[in-house]
């Protein structure tokens, strides 16, 4: 369980923002790997699958590390 807020120069932001940022980072790292392995060919709609992957990552972080 993480703290519910992140300090940013005395401003305390909700953890959700950190999850969003972390998800974006992970997604940026994962996407080139998926492209390289041509995983997008497995999906009928790669962009939709990508969006779903983003939501899965975000929701998983929130459920595992969230308050």
């Amino acid at each position, binding site marked *: 369980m993480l*703290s*519910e*807020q992140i300090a940013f120069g005395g401003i*305390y932001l*909700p953890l*959700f923002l950190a999850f969003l940022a972390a998800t974006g980072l992970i997604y940026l790292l994962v996407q080139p790997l998926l492209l390289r392995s041509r995983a997008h*060919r*497995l*999906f*009928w*709609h790669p962009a*939709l*699958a990508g*969006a*779903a*992957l983003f*939501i*899965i990552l*975000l*929701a*998983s972080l*929130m*459920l595992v590390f*969230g*308050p």
Partner: protein
Amino acid sequence: MANSKRFFAVTLRVIATLTVVAIAVLLGWFAWQHYVYAPWTRDARVQANVVNIAPEVSGTVGRVAVNDDSYVHKGDLLFAIEPVRFENAVAEAKAALEQALAQESFATRNARRLERLPRGGISTQDLQQAESEAASAAASVSQAEARLAQAKQDLDWATVRSPVDGYVTHLLLDEGDYATQGQSMMTLVNADTFRVTAYFEETKLSHIDVGDPVDIDLMASPEPLHGHVASIGRGIAVANNAPGERNLPNVDPVFQWVRLAQRVPVTIAFDSRPDMRVLTVGLSATVHVRPEEAERHQPVSTTDERDMVPAAPKLERARAEGLAEPIDTPVTRGAGG
């Protein structure tokens, strides 16, 4: 054949896409439910009863016996008003009492003497007057006694003592200041009444019950504290109730595309007396109510029963009666003597 292969491949790709989307929707829904409806909030503050100390008598402050932020016990001297005026008043009241006693003695003896005179030796009017003077003198004695008692009480009130165990806070009083009767001169934070008030969105209230265990994270301390729900607020102000023209309700026309959930104060009592080093009225806290742990939660009460909500039976009774546990609200009271 090629067409059916192609159809099969496309179908598989559609199914894969829909599967990923379904997982995303499911996880997203769980996360949303958890984040939006789970009973936790970052909007919580530490509170305690705040006692405003006002003297019962006016006068110049001759001595301030405490320092700012110091801890005082119930009955400890806080400050003293110059007693000369009150000592003089006591002396004056004593003298007045002695005078009244002398007058009463004379009037009583005079009345008795006149009563013993033979019939015709004194007129009825004179006898009645003597008896009346004796009764009046007795009343004067009572009056003088009351004044003496009040003068002694005023002298006692010139010494102001702490009505609670607590902390002196925001002390501005200094020797030489003029203390006015009934006007707050000092503020104490009652150390036995520290609690947390968490402001929960109304959407989360259905998951909170009196007695539920609570984890408290103070922004000021890395050590988590533990408590339980002592009571749930039963009223918040409604802006539309403010009287308008001709005392009619002043209802604002609103355009409700966006609505905000109201926040309701929930009082949380500490299970055990917390480390006072980290507790200050007004500190920010994050609280998590754990209704799923309510069954195995046994609050450990280590302080005054009046201040901390103690054990399960009491909570059960409160639940049965539909009542919240009483926790003192901030009060203003005078103190003296």
